[in-house]
């Protein structure tokens, strides 16, 4: 059922981050997050050029069911946001790890990654939340 790619890092609040070859990091929300939220209808993303701190609010996801804050897993300057989500917020449901990405940052401090969960630890966190 669950879909937690091994190559990503996670926050227990269900955000994922993928470090790209060029030292940038892409952020989104997990399969579990979208499954809990149900159909996503709006995504509010940070502004390009803004500076995010790890653990800080970076945006909001609204589904038919609820509104949920997005927390940034890492610090850095926002380089790009997924503008397709304006027209097609359903990408967050249909393809949360690829087309449903939220924003890319220039990693300010790679050691941020050490504070994040790996796939196994995130799976355990989800399991704990279920019970």
């Amino acid at each position, binding site marked *: 059922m669950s879909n937690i790619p091994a190559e990503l890092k996670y926050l227990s609040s269900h955000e994922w981050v993928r470090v790209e070859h060029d030292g940038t990091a892409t952020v989104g929300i997990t399969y579990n997050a979208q499954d809990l939220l*149900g*159909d996503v209808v709006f995504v509010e993303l940070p502004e390009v050029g803004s500076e995010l701190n790890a653990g800080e609010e970076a945006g909001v996801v609204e589904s*038919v069911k609820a*509104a949920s804050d997005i927390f940034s897993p890492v610090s850095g300057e926002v380089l790009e946001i997924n503008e397709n989500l304006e027209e097609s917020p359903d990408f967050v449901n249909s393809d949360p790890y690829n087309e449903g990405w939220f924003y890319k940052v220039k990693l300010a401090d790679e050691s941020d990654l050490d504070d994040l969960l790996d796939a196994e630890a995130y799976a355990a966190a989800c399991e704990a939340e279920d019970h």
Partner: protein
Amino acid sequence: MGNKTALYEAHVACGGKIVDFGGWDMPIHYGSQLEEHHVVRKASGMFDVSHMTIVDLEGDDAKAYLQYLLANDVNKLKEIGKALYSGMLNEKGGVIDDLIVYLMPVGYRLVVNCGTREKDLAWMQKQADGFNITLSERPELAMVAVQGPEAIEKAKAVLGGEKADIISGLNVFQGLESDGWMLCRTGYTGEDGLEIMVPEKEVADFWQQLKAAGVASCGLGARDTLRLEAGMNLYGSDMDESISPLQANMAWTVAWEPADRNFIGRVALEAEKADGVKTKLVGLVLEERGVLRGHQKVVVEGLGEGEITSGTFSPTLGYSIAVARVPAGTGDTCSVEMRKKLQTVQVVKPPFVRNGKRVYK
């Protein structure tokens, strides 16, 4: 573990996400609530509504009893099968429940909410003192709502024979029996369609036949967005025992005439009316980004505050709608506190959507 309808296994088998709904394990959706919503507006969908409570009423005093029990007047029902929507009020005029009552060949049939079942039955029994009536619950009847522009044709094709003929002859808000089934042209979506009461043992087959005919399984999530677009109240959210029908967009369901009909709550409603009704239930529209949600605070400049009673994203309109209880003098706009910020929204008269189209001004 909650109560399970006769269709529970069918829901699980086709991927229904099960949640607790008033003590019942019901499907909230089967994958996408939005798709299920759209299919009802554009084609046809079906909902398991077997959790609703069906009560038959018989006896010499059945009519007099209902004329006392309900704010609407069953004397309006002249044709067999004709249905009436009414509030059942307490002495203070608060809504104990909203229900549909059908005039049956013998007596009446009432359909009440599942979440209020116990208190409804207790209240109905208590008020029966002095009336020659019997109340019998019909838990062996399941209920399936088939809704959407193609719903009636699909249901007729599946059922065939006498049942199809009966459906062809049904007026809006009428229900007739056949073979232990009851075929009703009613619904909670703002589309044409049927609510069909089916003996429990036959309902799984009926559901599979509808599915084979292309009727989509839809969960309670879509049912809620559809009813809200249609401007229909949800008991427990939009009204309850502390709210009178005059404050819940249900003034049209209060039959004041004949003036000598004494129904429970009448005295309180007359006093409220004479005093001026203090609040009203209105529609709110937010065409910008964001979703209005139940319990958000409404601010009306110069008049005071109110509260959203139901709010959602409207899949048909592509933006958020809500109903809110606000001060009676509220005009064309007000503000809603959303995520700590005040957002201006438009005040409209529900419904928002009927038969697939935007209808509010």
